[in-house]
């Protein structure tokens, strides 16, 4: 399988502080890749470089086959993003947000309508589609944001802590949606603090102090460190740094 995300010695410095220190990894098409790390380990900085919000200091990376430094615009066309902070427009309705992003990504009017309908029905938001997003509870907002990120059927979708603050049932539903997307061939690059969720991923990496401390499938990592759960692996790796 081809690498949809290919990262080689990617580095980002802020003055004398090195937030991301020459990380290298790759993610294959259709994978659900968990990008873990403690707060301040450099995860968000790394993601921002991959999605074109931050210029790398050195190293290279390519997403969906395009170099993030030189072909950023092409990268943007092929990715979806769901940020940690809810970033759809709260003063617009569900339908209006969908229409906006559909249009921005170049979908035709018919596509916008069709996919919009499907999205709304799929989420069970039929009754609320004409309501302002601000009125939705948090869990619904997150699911909506995720769905909108997928609207234009990108090759890769980046999710930054998509389930924080959300109840367990919604979390479960969320992961069902992630699996469904992966099954369709979308690569899912997700960060999370919930390590039980991390067990659902195909592979995970754990960032420690700007470096990749571990990389592999959940089972591989548990075997390597002789821990029963990923949480124990994580704590073992991340603790000396904390």
């Amino acid at each position, binding site marked *: 399988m081809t690498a949809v995300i290919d990262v080689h010695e990617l580095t980002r410095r802020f003055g004398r502080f090195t937030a991301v220190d020459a990380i290298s990894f790759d993610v294959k098409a259709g994978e659900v890749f968990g990008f873990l790390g403690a707060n301040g380990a450099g995860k968000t900085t790394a993601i921002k470089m991959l999605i074109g919000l*931050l210029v790398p200091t050195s190293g290279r990376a390519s997403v969906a086959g395009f170099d993030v430094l030189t072909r950023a*615009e092409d990268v943007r066309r092929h990715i979806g993003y769901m*940020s940690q902070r809810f*970033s759809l427009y709260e003063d617009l309705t569900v339908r209006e947000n969908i229409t*906006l992003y559909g249009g*921005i990504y170049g979908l035709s009017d018919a596509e916008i309508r069709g996919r919009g309908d499907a999205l709304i029905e799929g989420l069970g938001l039929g009754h609320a589609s004409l309501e302002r997003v601000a009125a939705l509870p948090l869990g619904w907002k997150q699911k909506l944001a995720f769905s909108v990120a997928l609207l234009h059927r990108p090759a890769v979708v980046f999710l930054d802590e998509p389930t924080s603050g959300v109840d367990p049932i919604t979390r479960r539903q969320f992961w069902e949606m992630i699996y469904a997307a992966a099954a369709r061939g979308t690569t899912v690059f997700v960060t999370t603090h919930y390590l039980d969720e991390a067990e659902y991923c195909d592979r995970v990496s754990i960032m420690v102090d700007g470096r990749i401390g571990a990389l592999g499938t959940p089972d591989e990592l548990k075997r390597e460190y002789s821990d029963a759960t990923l949480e124990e692996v994580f704590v073992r790796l991340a603790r000396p740094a904390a």
Partner: protein
Amino acid sequence: MRALRFLLRKEFLQIFRDHVILGMLFVMPLGQLLILANAATFEVRSARLYVVDHDHTPASRGLTDRLAASGRFVLTAASPSSARADQAMLARQTDAILVIPTGFERDLVRQRRAEVQFILNAEDGAAAGVLQSYASRIFAAYSAELSARVTPTLASISARADLPPRRGGPIIEIRRRGWYNPELEYLDFMVPGILVVLVTVVGTLLTAMNIVREKEAGTLDQLNVTPIRRSTFIAAKLIPLWSLALLDLALGLILAHFAFGVPVRGSLGLVFGGAAIYLLAALGVGLWISTIAETQQQAMFVTFSIVMIYLLMSGLFTPVRGMPVWAQWAAQLNPVTHFIRLIRTVLLKGAGPADVAPQLAMLAAIGGVVLTLAVRQYRKRAA
């Protein structure tokens, strides 16, 4: 370009759902125009006069009567004490003091020349100068009247054009015309300017806070990861407020014409054409600030400081030509200066495109520069 359509839709939806913005855009400027248009005048109404007459002769009383009869001065007190008059002025109970010394009439008859003291309260500035010129005219007219009585064969130096010509000395008769504003209506002059000010302040503020607000809300990043072009983004931010500001201006002009009687002697099309370009420049500055500022508070502060400087240096309140040379040069960079000049000359003087071409050119140039800066400054990707 299609993306622009969708972005515009979103911007308009957001504006129309936001009562605060709508209130600011329409209620505030128009409401304030109504009040402030009445306030913005240097016209001097009747001034209170305190007379200290030491002479008590027909001549001195005649002078006092002339001043009172002119309608410009209201006799509020008379006393033999200068000290009391001074106190009254300190206590803001009088605006002017006339002191007529003893021997006034005697000097007029014997020496053909007499002095009086005229003291004005210059605390509030401009009024004093205007009062002085009123008074000068009255003194001169009274002088002429007395001259005619004292030496009937001599002509008088006066501004009263209705005096019949007499043999004797030379007379220059001055016919006056005040063009464009014969009634010296302050409203005609100030209202268009105030309207421009109000629309500019509101428009620039709102534009400046716009991008920063998305930054603060977190929705800006979501847009930055999309393939939207920078110019598209800036255009989407500019066009909605620009069109609403233009509408605002139109409403204001209607109000100005029908409520205040401001004349419309030139082409309205020219005014709006100029306004369209002007607003691009003015709002463009707001946008540019928005791309630099980190928080709404910063955006607001910087915008306000700049807008305030604009306004005070634009020739709205004080003439540009009265400013020192360096300030006049700075005023050339100020879009408000050019637009106010344009709107005044078109509305009051009926100026045509050729007459205001320099202003249009400057506005277009400033707008071009500012918008280019805004587009350049806006980076989707942090360095």
